[in-house]
């Protein structure tokens, strides 16, 4: 039983109207306002229902219609001093899009920001979904409780499916309290291999790191910056920052940034990949073992790079049209790359998603065939 349909006649009607539309037509484009769409697909745009809510701040759970704007979700949570812990990025600046990102789009893209390294990805905070499959059937999975192993976990499958399996109409999320304070430890001037070692060292301490990034020197001659964020109650934060400085002593002197606005700005810029907004060229997102990250970057020789998640996630800026995956293959790495920003022609030629495992590719195709047998949703979006 849908959580929202029971109490919101509007949601119920809108969802069933969409189901009728899906049964009758196609192909469709399922990507909300399209603000974070990276794959290519054509079709009649479908918008998930908006407005319906079921928020229980004392249980840290939120159920919301998938079309509700992310901004609205964040504002309502903030009014209860809560937030989405996985820090969803705003992709508009990077992709040059307008419109209001929806919460359903965040889930469909499994969009997670820098805090993912400490607390988990969007998919780890998804408790339940309702979606309409390609036959117009309404399907529910998971629920609104924190622990749930009842049946197969289609919630994780839907998170990151980029609208290729169904139109997500309702999502239930685990939310988190906003901590009292946040601060960033900064080391300047480290080389990239050393910086990743510093990040790994920090992540290997028990001080609950919730951000671990490294930026190259900027065009204006500023030194490279290795950034480590901690959050929590003030006393605890001051203690842990001191202990972290001690643990990182061998990497040189460090500064602590305590100013709330400065901290928010630094991590929002990393989250939204702001550094590449105005820069020409393609943008790739690479997932790699941190200990191999610096060597891989050296081999790939990008125009610029942002190390996030302690080096597990790399944003690479490359010459337009260059085939990063071909270079990666030559290194023998197990890392994989997603082409986030490029011309449609380049995306068509190189493919947006990385697919070099025939068995998982076959399984994914099999799942799409089951959930959307007539290929009504986002045809070709994920290859």
């Amino acid at each position, binding site marked *: 039983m849908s959580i929202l349909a029971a109490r919101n006649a509007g949601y119920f009607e809108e969802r069933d109207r969409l189901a009728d539309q899906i049964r009758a037509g196609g192909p469709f484009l399922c990507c909300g306002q399209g603000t974070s769409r990276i794959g290519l697909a054509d079709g009649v745009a479908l918008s998930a229902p908006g407005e319906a809510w079921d928020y*229980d701040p004392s249980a*840290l*759970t939120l159920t919301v219609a998938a079309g509700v704007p992310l901004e609205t979700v964040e504002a309502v949570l903030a009014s209860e001093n809560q937030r989405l812990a996985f820090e969803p990025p705003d992709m508009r600046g990077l992709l040059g899009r307008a419109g209001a990102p929806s919460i359903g789009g965040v889930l469909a893209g499994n969009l997670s920001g820098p805090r993912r390294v400490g607390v988990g990805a969007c998919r780890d905070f998804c408790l339940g979904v309702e979606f309409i499959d390609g036959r117009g059937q309404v399907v529910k999975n998971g*629920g609104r409780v924190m*622990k749930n192993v009842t049946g197969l976990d*289609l919630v994780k499958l839907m*998170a990151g499916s980029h609208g290729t399996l169904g139109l997500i109409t309702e999502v239930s999320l685990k939310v988190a309290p906003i901590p009292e304070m946040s601060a960033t430890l900064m080391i300047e001037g480290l080389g990239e291999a050393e910086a990743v070692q510093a990040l790994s060292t920090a992540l290997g301490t028990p001080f609950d790191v919730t951000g671990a990034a490294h930026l190259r020197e900027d065009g204006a001659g500023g030194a490279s910056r290795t950034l480590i964020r901690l959050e929590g109650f003030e006393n*605890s934060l001051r203690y842990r920052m001191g202990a972290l400085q001690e643990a990182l002593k061998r990497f040189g002197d460090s500064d602590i940034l305590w100013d709330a606005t400065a901290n928010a700005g630094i991590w929002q810029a990393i989250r939204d990949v702001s550094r590449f907004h105005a820069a020409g060229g393609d943008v790739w997102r690479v997932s790699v073992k941190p200990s191999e990250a610096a060597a891989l970057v050296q081999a790939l020789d990008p125009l610029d790079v942002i190390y996030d998640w302690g080096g597990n996630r790399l944003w690479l800026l490359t010459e337009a049209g260059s085939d990063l995956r071909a270079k990666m293959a030559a290194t023998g790495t197990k890392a994989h790359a997603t082409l986030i920003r490029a011309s449609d022609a380049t995306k068509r030629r190189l493919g947006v998603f990385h697919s070099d495992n025939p068995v*998982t590719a076959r399984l*994914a195709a099999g799942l799409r065939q089951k959930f959307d047998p007539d290929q009504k949703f986002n045809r070709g979006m994920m290859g």
Partner: protein
Amino acid sequence: MEMPVPKPGVLARKPELVTRLRAVLPHDAVIDAPEEVKAYECDALTAYRCAPLLAVLPASTEEVSAVLKICHDMGVPVVPRGAGTSLAGGSLPTADSVILGVARLREVLEVNYPDRYIRVQTGMTNLSVTGAVESDGFFYAPDPSSQLACAISGNIAMNSGGAHCLKYGVTTNNLLGVTMVMADGEVVEIGGAEMEAAGLDLLGLICGSEGQLGVVTEATLRILPKPEGARPVLMGFDSNEVAGACVADIIRSGLIPVAIEFMDRPIIRATEAFAKAGYPECEALLIVEVEGSEQEIADQLARIIGIAERHNPVEIRESQSADESARIWLGRKSAFGAMGQMGDYICLDGTIPVGELPNVLKRIGELGEEYGHMVGNVFHAGDGNMHPLILFNANEPGQLASAEALGAEILKLCVDVGGCLTGEHGVGVEKRDLMTHQFAPADLEAQMAVKDVFDPKWLLNPAKVFPLHVSDSRRADG
């Protein structure tokens, strides 16, 4: 418990099956003598037993693959088995099945501290994974109470949790990659040391799939640095409602305790009689544990006690030493044993929205009286994961059936208040027939469609998760 009729064709071909399996496995890895296969007739849900056709104990991914190829070729159902600690009958055999045990897959394959992961074969016990890294200051976070015995393969199959998952999450949040053998013997690598999937999140689908999609032989697990220290506080209240309200206030405060455990009066009494932990006489007890440096622990406990004091606690006992911490945990950790002393019991694990705690506890008490069974409640309150323990006498005819009927009522109640049938034990056979209470036909159809893709002949772990009448046509095709 209704189970499918064994396939006569499979039973008749046992000698051929044994011969083919012996050709790919060492002699002692194929167990076919009836008195020996009996050891695999049940898991920790001992009320249901059925000896399998035979059991195999492969020692490598290649051997698992060879076994599955043969079984697939001959149409033989396969029941994957970790350490056999499932409380839900997750590895209950059928008479025509091969038990595929992972007990010989016990190697640590790689430990990587800079990248914070460990790669293991999945027959390793949960606790031995932590054992492999703890001298270097790391641990593996999911901590099911069976962690001394349970295998990683079973943890992945059931997406196991534990007392500390409030902070660290359950198995799916700590699993980075698997090597899995498909029903037809094909080996697939899914995920790895990276934090993000390359395409669809198949790993999330596999974790918690109860052996329906494949046999996981190797796993890459996230390891975490050990906290500097941990200490609990014990708090007694004169009603479940007040204790429940206190839990909600703690959660909202921004504190992240690693555990919030709740015990009700029947459990407090039983554990006092059994373990003499020195618990106060009251209606509800909370144990809240926090982590950090000494000073951080003191600060957090002071905040928690401040919140509790607004709820007129009967008693607050802050641990000041390792010895006191152990005494506070003693009763909680002996709760199952204490109930076991009083009789046989069924342990359920439905989850509810935390706001429903007082209401659901009251209703469970009423249902217990109606059915004539004592029910104790000890559970992970921070995430609403209940553990009602229903006492019964297995030697008295009809008692098991009435305890099970009561259990079904309680689980339906969990679903009706917005929760679910199982928070960490899994569906197995135990809750299989209640699935239609939580899921509409289209919901179950979508889940079964996933199994169709991974295991088109429906040979893996038969008769679990999906009600038989719902999966009939698919199983007939196999």
